[in-house]
């Protein structure tokens, strides 16, 4: 068992979320937010501004003339694409590395995070029929961040984790709890707190494997749970845990979806994923 204080110390060593990203997140939650507000915030960060312009001017879009300003970029991409792109660029650096404790090679956790983000967005759109699905994409992107913190602890206990799994047949998250004393979901929640992220993100991260534990933001939590299960099933960034996770059928009911609805969305996910990965690569 690992002392939580010890893990929290490591979380506090992680640099804070840049103000620009926090501000963009805040604006993304606000339905009244105008393109002008976004430009005002983004232009404060040169690195992000450059990436956005590079994205617009990439051969992928094949625009007849160069996009030189953020204003034009925003008109062209639309608010939600831009917000999602900024967040993805930011967390890409955190998620690229291998996490041997989870059996994830370099890039695996990133692939998984991007797939879950897109799936969350797709499920959200299907469920609420809104074009703007608020923070679901972000929640999906961040849901497994706790793994980058727990990785070292897990690596030291691999043997006992495996033993526990084969002796009990429990889920991977239950094995984490039994051997380490904490789960990557719980630790991810602490990291989200450390980053001062909105409460809906904290809840979505904290409860993504056990959605019935959530007391608020139950719909958002259900979306992330389903998106994660779907992406694990389809093999997006699978690790040592494989498919050793519980599926909570109540999450479907809560959103008024059937199993077949979810599978039909899986086919959409495949093409969105290919496109999104190509776009992100272009701008990096």
């Amino acid at each position, binding site marked *: 068992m690992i002392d939580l204080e010890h893990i929290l110390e490591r979380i506090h060593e992680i640099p804070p979320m840049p103000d620009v990203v926090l501000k963009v997140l805040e604006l993304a939650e606000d339905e009244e937010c105008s393109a002008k507000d976004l430009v005002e915030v983004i232009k404060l960060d040169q690195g992000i501004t450059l990436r956005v312009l590079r994205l617009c001017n990439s051969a992928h879009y094949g625009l007849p003339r160069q996009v030189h300003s953020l204003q034009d970029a925003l008109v062209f991409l639309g608010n939600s694409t831009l917000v999602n792109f900024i967040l993805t660029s930011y967390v890409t650096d955190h998620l690229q590395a291998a996490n041997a404790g989870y059996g994830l090679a370099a890039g695996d956790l990133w692939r998984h995070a991007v797939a879950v983000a897109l799936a969350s967005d797709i499920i959200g759109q299907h469920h609420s029929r809104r074009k703007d699905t608020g923070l679901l994409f972000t929640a999906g992107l961040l849901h497994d961040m706790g793994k980058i913190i727990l990785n070292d602890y897990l690596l030291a206990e691999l043997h006992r984790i495996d033993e526990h799994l084969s002796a009990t047949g429990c889920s991977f998250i239950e094995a984490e709890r039994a051997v380490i004393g904490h789960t990557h979901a719980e630790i991810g929640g602490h990291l989200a707190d450390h980053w001062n992220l909105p409460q809906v993100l904290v809840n979505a991260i904290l409860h993504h494997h056990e959605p019935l534990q959530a007391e608020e933001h139950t719909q958002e939590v259900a979306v992330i749970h389903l998106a994660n299960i779907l992406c*694990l*099933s*389809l093999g997006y960034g699978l690790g040592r845990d494989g*498919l050793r996770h*519980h599926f909570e059928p109540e999450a479907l009911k809560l959103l008024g979806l059937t199993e077949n609805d979810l599978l039909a969305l899986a086919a959409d996910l*495949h093409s969105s994923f290919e496109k999104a990965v190509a776009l992100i690569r272009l701008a990096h």
Partner: protein
Amino acid sequence: MGEVITVGIADLKVSGDPEAEIVTYALGSCIGVALWDEEARVGGILHFMLPDSKMNREKARTTPALFADTGLPLLFREAYHLGAEKSRIVVRLVGGANILNDNSLFNIGERNHRAATHILTGNSVRILAESVGGNESLSMRLHVGSGAVSVVTGAGESRAL
């Protein structure tokens, strides 16, 4: 060492190069179908995701390898182009894992396996061996020249199928 041909998710590749190896990773609940014709020395792998193209007809048109019922015919057709013949073709199936469940909900792996078996046996294609089910994510490799198939577990252990 011959060429290594990677098959993505909802993708298929065939080859007539006896030196080549065809691989596909992280099958999860998807199924990898390895096809082989010994006489023609032709091999191929389909990595399909879902059992039935009725689930999303639009995607079935653009990406037939997504579904068992549109991907399998395409895999066979591509192999025929390289000289394979149906009567000689044997297949092996890998993947079809399932999420833990006590209520047999969300068993895509099982449904994928049933769909593939139904289509193959319905067309009198011989299923030589399979490594299907469980809740571990498997990868697979096919050596085109020898027809040898190996299955790689999430922990990196490899075994012949």
